[in-house]
Structure formats: C-alpha cells, structure tokens
C-alpha cells in the first residue's frame, strides 16, 4: 500500500526516501537529524508510516519519533481494512492518519506550498534552483533523507500568471487545490526552511507572448487554454477512471434532442 503514498508524492513532485521497516526508519531519521546539524535545510519534516503490517513492537516507533524528533510531522497511513491500526497510530502519537488513496491525494496537495502573495519577498534562496532540480527518483531506497525545501524545489516551477492561465487544471496546482487537509504545520524554523523560494511571486499579468519556463514538465506545457476544448492529441492524457455507455435514448436526452412522436 505504500505504492499509493509514493504515487501521491510523485504526483506532487516531492521526493522521499523509502525504507522497509521501523529499524531502517530510525536509522534514516537519525542520519537526517545529524545532517540537519550541518544544514538545517536537510531536516526531516515529515515521516509517513504505513501501518498495515505493523506488529506490537513496530508501533513503538511512534512514541520514539515523537520524543526524539518532535518537529517531525508523523503521518500514519492504513488501508481501508486496517482502521484499527490507524487508530492505534493516532493514540501513539501520529499527527495525521490517512485511510484511503483519496486522503493521500488531498494530503499530498497540502504539502505543496501556495505561491507567495504579490509583493511578498521570497525567502532565503535555496540551492539547487528549481529549474536545475533533478527529477524525483524512482522507488529506490535512499540513504539521504529528503530535505523539505529540496522536496518543494524538486516540484515543477510554477508558471508565471500569464502562462498559468494557459495551463490545464493540474491536480497538484495550488490554485486548483482544495483547502489544505488538517495537517499540523511545521514549526516556524522548519516552515521557513521549507519555503518555496523559487516559486515566483504573483506579479501583474505578463504579456501573452511570455512563454512558460523551459524546464516545466510536459504537464505544465500544455497548449490548451482554460475554457477551450483540448486538442485531439490531448484527450489521451490522464488516467481513465471509468467509462459510461449510454443508450440511444439517454444520448438523445443528454444532447437535448426531442424524441419524435
């Protein structure tokens, strides 16, 4: 079930280190804490724990993390049939409990910071810049803890406002995102380090001729304007989640045609 989590993170353009058991999680968190001493941007801001197959001893991870790394947000994830493990995780210190892939999608959206308001000064610069950020890695376990700021920068850069209205609605777009899930925000020190420094502040509308950043991924480079039907070759993009077959009568009703008497 961690696939759903990883897919949600990947869809949001975030990076994560994946470990297979609680012991490796402790090792990873401790290494991240040690790395943080030299570079605050490398702080481990979130830990996502899939609890479906947790045993009694595994749940001891929650109080340990709460005690040792209180700034780290602990997210527990369980499959629909494992609600009781989600409740256990909550009792033992999880900040957020996710019980479905829909929850994961909502939560992943909440991780993506909104663009700063007009005139707002961006936070301190963080390297590497967004357009040089590498692609999120595949599901290979990493020994490097993902720094939050780097996670955000690894996401595709926001197009400028003029280009933003050319882009199709994107599930991870802050503009189209619903209100954030009830996720506890990191403390100010972490929040500032995780600020989206490379996201351009909202500016007066640019001329229509301005093109989106060249490093934008294909999803951000759509030629379709909002309100216009997509080109034929764009219909195939995205996932098909279901099909509906209509009878001739239903089709006529849908199209508003009067049935001949």
């Amino acid at each position, binding site marked *: 079930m961690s696939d759903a989590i990883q897919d949600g993170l990947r869809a949001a353009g975030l990076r994560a280190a994946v470990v297979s058991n609680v*012991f*490796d999680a402790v*090792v990873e968190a401790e290494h991240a804490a040690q790395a943080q001493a030299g570079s605050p941007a490398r702080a481990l801001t979130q830990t996502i724990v899939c609890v479906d197959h947790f*045993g009694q*001893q595994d749940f*001891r991870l929650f109080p340990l993390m709460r005690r*040792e790394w209180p700034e780290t947000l602990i997210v527990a994830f369980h499959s629909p049939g494992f609600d009781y493990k989600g409740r256990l995780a909550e009792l033992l210190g999880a900040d957020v409990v996710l019980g479905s892939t829909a929850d994961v999608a909502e939560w992943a959206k909440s991780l993506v910071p909104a663009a700063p308001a007009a005139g707002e000064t961006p936070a301190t610069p963080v390297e590497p810049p967004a357009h040089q950020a590498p692609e999120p890695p595949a599901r290979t376990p990493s020994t490097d803890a993902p720094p939050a700021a780097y996670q955000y920068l690894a996401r595709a850069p926001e197009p400028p406002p003029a280009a933003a209205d050319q882009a199709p609605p994107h599930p991870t777009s802050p503009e189209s995102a619903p209100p954030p899930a009830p996720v506890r925000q990191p403390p100010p020190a972490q929040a500032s380090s995780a600020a989206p420094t490379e996201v351009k502040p909202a500016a007066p509308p640019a001329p229509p001729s301005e093109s989106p950043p060249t490093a934008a991924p294909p999803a951000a480079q759509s030629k379709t304007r909002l309100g216009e039907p997509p080109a034929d070759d764009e219909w195939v993009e995205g996932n098909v989640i279901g099909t509906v077959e209509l009878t001739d009568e239903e089709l006529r009703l849908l199209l508003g045609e009067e049935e001949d008497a």
Partner: protein
Amino acid sequence: MIPASRAQAVPARRDRRVLLVCRSAGRRTLLERLVGGAETHASAVEAVLAVLRRRPQAVVLNLEDVEGRERDFLAALRRSRPEVPIYAIAQPEDEPLARGLLREGAADYFVLPTDIYRLPRTLEKAARSGQPVCRTGLAP
C-alpha cells in the same frame, strides 16, 4: 525460570557497555545479572537508536522480543555498526532461527536455559580481545 541466584554476576565495568534488548521481566533480571553493566531496552527500535548514538561493546538480543523482525533488526545494526557483535538469546524451539541469524551476521547465540551461562565468558573474551567471539565452526 532459572533462579537468578544460579547466575554468576559479572561485575560492571565502566569501560564496558553491553546493550540488552529484552522485554520479559524475569529474563531481564537474569540477563542483567549475567551481563554486568548492561543497558537494557524493552524496545528494539529504542535499542537501534541507542546503538546509533553511542557504540556499545556488544548487543544481546532476546529473540522473543522482536516478533519476527529479528532479521530486519540485525540488518539495520549491521549496516550502522558492523563492528559491534550481536548475540541472540533463543528458546530451544527457536534454535534453527538463531542458527540462521549466524549466517546473516550474528556473532553467536545462546539457547535457554543452560547455554545462557556461556554469555558472560563470551562477552568477557570479546572485551579482552577486542574481537567478537563467535561460535566455533558457525561464525559468519
């Protein structure tokens, strides 16, 4: 249950730190008596963190307390502190499992109830030589 009075206590040494992973109260008393200067953890995840933060002379793991996660525990410790010997305490029925752990990097195992009395001498030898003392012929 083995009476603690039968166990020969090993005097604690200030330069020695053996990390004991054991939850069972009775066995914990026995092992702490056998292993002088033991730092006991009831939770394996706590033990992993303790090992990461400060290198112990050895780790003694009661296999019953890791609920089938002994291989993960061993692997995490071996990756983090490969120089630290890990000893397992096993019930007789768990001896095949303990023997399998030797192939995965455990230094030795001790079967309850009688074999456990080799543990103090093994730790003492390891402390003196600076090398983990392994079971003859079965060492990794």
